[in-house]
């Protein structure tokens, strides 16, 4: 398979996954997400000679840099990451809890936002992009042991924040947070 064919396959297979990656991190409208995704694949195209056999974590890595560059110029990156809890509202979508699933509301996003940017990213990549530690290392551009350590510490800090929040929520609103 030629490099171009491999790229086309990766594009088709992962277009939506990359879109979700961008949407989760960009407090923008759908067309803004689409523009950033187009830029991600444009950069990936120029670097297609580097495309690995499992391209998704690599594409996430490209998207991370692209996203940072995209919003850095606007001076919004940090602010946007902290506003991620309002992401669904920004897109006009409401979370509708189905009867059989627990959908923690924006409080989980609030908890996440209290962590460092590095912790947030490693947690998002694991929970939302569902990366393994090996894939995490590719996306973050670090070694596997470093990735595992970063995830371990981030989870611990997230756990602590959740416990603290649950305690507060329980005290304030009874059993609300324990669906």
């Amino acid at each position: 398979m030629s490099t171009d064919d491999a790229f086309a396959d990766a594009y088709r297979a992962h277009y939506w996954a990359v879109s979700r990656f961008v949407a989760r991190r960009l407090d923008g409208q759908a067309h803004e997400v689409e523009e950033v995704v187009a830029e991600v694949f444009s950069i990936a195209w120029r670097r297609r000679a580097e495309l690995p056999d499992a391209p998704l974590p690599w594409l996430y890595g490209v998207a991370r840099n692209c996203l940072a560059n995209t919003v850095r110029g606007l001076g919004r990156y940090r602010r946007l990451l902290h506003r991620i809890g309002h992401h669904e509202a920004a897109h006009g979508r409401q979370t509708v809890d189905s009867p059989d699933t627990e959908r923690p509301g924006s409080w989980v996003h609030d908890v996440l936002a209290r962590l460092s940017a590095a912790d947030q990213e490693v947690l998002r990549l694991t929970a939302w992009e569902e990366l393994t530690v090996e894939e995490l290392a590719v996306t973050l551009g670090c070694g596997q042991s470093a990735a595992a350590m970063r995830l371990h510490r981030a989870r611990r800090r997230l756990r602590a924040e959740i416990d603290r929040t649950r305690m507060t929520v329980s005290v304030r609103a009874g059993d609300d947070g324990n669906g």
Partner: protein
Amino acid sequence: MGDELDLLRAADPARADDGPWRDGPLHARAERGLNRLLHSARTKRARRRLVLRAEAAVLALGAALAFTFSDAGSGKAVAMPVALAPRADAPAVPLAELARRAEARARTAGAADGPHRGSHLQSWYLSMRTGPDAAPPVTVPEERITRWRADGSGSELVVATDPRLPGRPVINDTGGSWHTVNDGKVLHRKTYPAGSADGQRQRRLTVRTKPPTDPGALRDQLATLYGGGGGGRGDTAGPAGARTPQLLLALSSLRQEWTPGPRETAAIVRVLADAEGLRPAGAVTDRLGRRGQAYVYDGPDGGRNATRQMVILDPRTGQLLGSEITFTKNLPDLRIRSGEVLSYEAWMP
């Protein structure tokens, strides 16, 4: 209660099974984006020449022409093809007149008259490597046949050949690396079984989308699928006339995917008749010995304004016969002299 990662998972703001970014087929804009990228590779040689950006100034092509011509003497088909010379003394057919002829012919066309997916063409491209160790430019002649049938089966065949010098070795360009191959060497051959319509290549929008028979719709399609001059995003920069060279490149790309029938041909000629800066240059005999009418554009090309594009049409039917891009200025930093050919395509039914 799940662990902290389960909680986070459940709060995913962009789910794979729901919402605007859920998994599913690509929408048209995403397909278009992919096509633009793939298309940019196909025409990169030509575009590279057209754009001729500032970095070209640092190229060290070292004795390019000396190499080219000395090698031609040793039998390799690397000499640049000589530019076609339209006969200005012959009566020129205005494009509007040719559009009317093509439209008249289109009205009598039957259901079996196309368009047909696939194409047959001979081409030369000037190929140059860039960078301090760059080797001299060579021309890369080849013949390409792509055919698709109604049952979704198809075949592709690319042969290295130079009809001007039959039997001579031919230079082949593989990803910027040159090899001498025998005339007639098969560079690429692939067959697709019936039902390949679901295959990756067949899913490409350019392959799936028939060229329209309405000139306006065709212009839009050239802009959106082939990046050609119709005001598509990213193609609007520069003076309006600079869209015409992009339009001609887009037509070349379309012609590599499809063989138009009389109805599509009529739309193509009408689009050309409406294009700015394209003027009749007289009668010409093309590389395959066919008589045609040449129409040239030598206005702003979005780069150094150092190129002339020519499209050759059959004066009776308006059928696209070929295209040629030549340099109109000396470009000493690229060792290019005015009049040299950058690319040439000859399309066959």
